[in-house]
């Protein structure tokens, strides 16, 4: 009897933590909307002075965000699939380096990376100088009416999700299937289309959804390169600062709702195998295979070259440009020769950006360390309820949501929930940053832990230990934790880098405790470009070091 009580106690503690720290902030905006619908309606749709002006602005911002996210995902797939294929299947040298490069945008703070991309296409010493044309914030792609720079940044920040999920799936597809297909007479292109592609389809789908949601919610880098264009997350930040809470909350709730609608069905579809009848009629199929047989095998090299070129443009070029510019601008502006536009002057001159940067790095590290440590404990406590209860799968699915909620909506939600405009428990500042980061850190740690839990079939060993007479606590201490240790560690480090680079939500909740990623946004807005360059480079270097630590720690 006592043992069962313990079990219930442990599971309900885990559940309580998840609800308070993760689920409540994630869904609060939806509840807030419903509870204060009259107020919101009045502000957004029937304002006595401006009528439904906000509604029109919301529609405009949403429309831009959706167009942007959709286009981003399409480009992600076009460059992501060949890249994933190259990483898994080809035998070119330096493959693991390429794979590391692909994950860089996931660990580099988005504001720093966005700034580096902007430099690449606009600065006098960047790719723009080579191609002879600046792609500034004002260049709009005709037809779809998306700022070109915004699209570039979103692609480089989201395509790693596509590459990672697809390359993971490609690794799982046994090469025997491809060998058998080839031995049955199929060319390599036909084999890809008819055997490999359908088998990795669920991952393509879930990778795309993740990339779509990320693009829809991207705030940090977008703030830097937005210019006059306003995406939905940017509108939330803007309105929050103007204290127009009703439209901000309404738009935030819409974004959260949209993320839910997109991610839940896909999670459901991906979890079960479906019968995929070929949609192509047989007569067409026969003609297609004939055509595919004529594609020469040299095509493979074109694919690899294309993938490498894309990788260079979206990842290497920004980092190289940033480094180059920091060096060129170190002493003075290379054009005008003005010392006060040099990096050194801005850092150590009267504006003393060096001290500000150092202070913000300190703030960042303290906030991120606290957030990840607390998240790790919450993750460890809530492991049993996910692995050992009937609602476990449901919880695991819901935990995906904090990962795709637009960060500015999350920040707003925190302000409205715990902050001065809600329960008045925590004022904007470092503690609110910590609590905000917990919301997305817990799912990251849980996801990697659960993955390693199932990978090494820990539950079988747990059952064995239970049958040998171990109590739930014994099992947890002697079996579960040791066996999932690596997963917990990897997840925690990953969450730490996420937390360090988070910009959108932090920007709203930080009060006067500025973190280094948000500092870059402020510096760009204050036109302290050389200082921003230096801070971005510093952040990128820190992230690279963290990436190295992750690799060593997780083998």
């Amino acid at each position, binding site marked *: 009897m006592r043992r069962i009580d313990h079990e219930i106690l442990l599971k309900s503690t885990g559940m309580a933590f998840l609800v308070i720290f993760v689920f409540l902030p994630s869904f609060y905006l939806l509840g807030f909307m419903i509870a204060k619908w009259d107020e919101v309606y009045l502000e957004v749709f029937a304002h006595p002075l401006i009528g439904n002006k906000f509604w029109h602005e919301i529609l405009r911002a949403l429309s831009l965000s959706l167009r942007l996210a959709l286009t981003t995902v399409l480009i992600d797939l076009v460059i992501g699939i060949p890249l994933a294929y190259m990483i898994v299947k080809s035998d070119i040298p330096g493959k693991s380096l390429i794979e590391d490069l692909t994950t860089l945008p996931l660990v580099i703070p988005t504001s720093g990376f966005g700034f580096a991309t902007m430099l690449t296409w606009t600065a006098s010493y960047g790719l723009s100088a080579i191609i002879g044309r600046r792609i500034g914030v004002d260049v709009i792609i005709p037809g779809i009416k998306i700022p070109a720079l915004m699209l570039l940044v979103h692609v480089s920040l989201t395509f790693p999700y596509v590459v990672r999920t697809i390359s993971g799936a490609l690794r799982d597809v046994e090469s025997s*299937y491809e060998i*058998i297909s*080839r031995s*049955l007479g199929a060319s390599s292109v036909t084999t890809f289309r008819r055997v490999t592609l359908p088998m990795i389809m669920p991952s393509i789908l879930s990778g795309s959804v993740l990339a779509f949601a990320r693009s829809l919610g991207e705030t940090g880098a977008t703030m830097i390169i937005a210019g006059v264009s306003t995406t939905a997350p940017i509108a939330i930040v803007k309105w929050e600062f103007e204290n127009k809470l009703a439209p901000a909350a309404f738009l935030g709730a819409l974004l959260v709702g949209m993320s839910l609608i997109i991610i839940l069905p896909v999670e459901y579809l991906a979890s079960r195998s479906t019968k995929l009848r070929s949609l192509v009629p047989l007569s067409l199929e026969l003609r297609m295979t004939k055509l595919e047989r004529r594609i020469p095998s040299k095509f493979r090299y074109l694919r690899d070259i294309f993938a490498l070129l894309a990788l260079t443009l979206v990842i290497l070029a920004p980092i190289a440009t940033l480094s180059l510019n920091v060096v060129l601008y170190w002493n003075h502006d290379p054009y005008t020769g003005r010392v006060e536009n040099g990096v050194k002057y801005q850092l150590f001159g009267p504006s003393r950006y060096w001290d500000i940067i150092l202070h913000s790095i300190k703030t960042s590290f303290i906030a991120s360390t606290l957030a990840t440590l607390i998240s790790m404990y919450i993750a460890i406590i809530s492991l049993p309820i996910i692995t050992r209860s009937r609602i476990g799968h449901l919880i695991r699915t819901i935990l995906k949501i904090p990962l795709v909620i637009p960060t500015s909506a999350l920040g707003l939600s925190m302000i409205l929930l715990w902050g001065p405009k809600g329960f008045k428990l925590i004022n904007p500042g470092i503690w609110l940053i910590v609590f905000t980061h917990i919301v997305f850190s817990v799912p990251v740690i849980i996801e990697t832990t659960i993955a390693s839990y199932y990978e090494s079939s820990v539950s079988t060993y747990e059952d064995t230990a239970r049958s040998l007479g171990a109590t739930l606590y014994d099992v947890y201490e002697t079996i579960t934790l040791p066996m999932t240790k690596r997963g917990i560690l990897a997840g925690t480090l990953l969450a730490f880098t996420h937390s360090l680079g988070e910009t959108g939500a932090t920007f709203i909740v930080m009060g006067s405790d500025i973190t280094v990623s948000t500092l870059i946004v402020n510096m760009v807005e204050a036109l302290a470009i050389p200082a921003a360059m230096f801070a971005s480079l510093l952040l990128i270097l820190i992230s690279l070091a963290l990436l190295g630590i992750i690799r060593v720690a997780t083998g």
Partner: protein
Amino acid sequence: MPNVVVVNVKKRYGEIVALDGVNLEIKDREYVCIIGPSGSGKSTLLKVIAGILEPDEGQVYIDGIPVSEIPIEERRLGIVMQDIMLFPHMNIWDNVIYSPVVKGLQYNIVREKGLTALSLLEIDANLNSLPNELSRGAQQKVALARALAADAKLLLLDEPLGSIDARTARVLRYELRRIVKSLGLTAIHVTHNQEEAMSIADRIVIMRRGKVEQVGTPIELYASPKTPFVCRFIGGEANFFEGTITERNGTLATIKLKNGTKIVAEELRGINGKVVVAIRPEHISITEDKEEMYSDLSSENVLKGRIIEVNFLGSYIRYVVDTDEGEIIVKAPRNAIVLRENTPVLLNINKAYVFNYPEEGLERAIAYE
């Protein structure tokens, strides 16, 4: 028409030598089984023949053409694996007609090839079902049908019955041989099951530690094994003794075992000195030793002992007998009188194999590795 020639093939994985100079010739329309303990290199050899693995040295020729010079899609191989490897997202019909479709054949030909393959294997499953809705045995039949619909001339079977329940596997193996023979195909079938190989192969290749130990028909391997290992691997249990040749009389050699028992056996290879004697359990007859009725133990090929274990195995009875030369396994036909444990018995040896004493020692020479 495919004949396969393997010339001096070597393959190394780091420190491990998987294939150590393999030479082999497989004739057209032959059903060959490759058997050996796990790690003996049999699967690696099959992959090298298929051209999936490239050997470090040596070459494989199919119909006189080096296999590496033919693109895999034109080799007309039918590869069937233990893991079955039906495309999981395609239904049964789409799996079977996969090859004619990807070769871009005409619709009516595609259909005809699919139906022929299905009827050859007597597949009556719902063609719309997905592979995982079928039993393992039925899945493997579909995989075979897929290979046949591809007009494969050379079937490469890697433990094709390994993941199927024993009863179904036994039925399927005869079916496999029947199809190969009726279509005039060549088949190379890797298995670790010597009984499976004995019952369907024209010839058997026995592999050990990356080398071919012996090649021959099942009867040849059973009747005249070249090494103690082959003797143990083919035909099940065997009794092994160390001894020395003391006398020779034409083709007959007299061997003295450790504790003095004399064995007279046919020995054609002219071996002398220290030897290994192998005796199959079915080549020993067992009779009750009724009170010193036969006390003259100086005579040859006779051992005295006491039964310590009796196992009834359906068609025969297996005895373990404790003798001066150690424990000896004896198989007696079922119709004989069943003797009980502790009965004193006399063992008469009807046939024994004599081998040169192996350099590595008897223990290592007959180990399943």
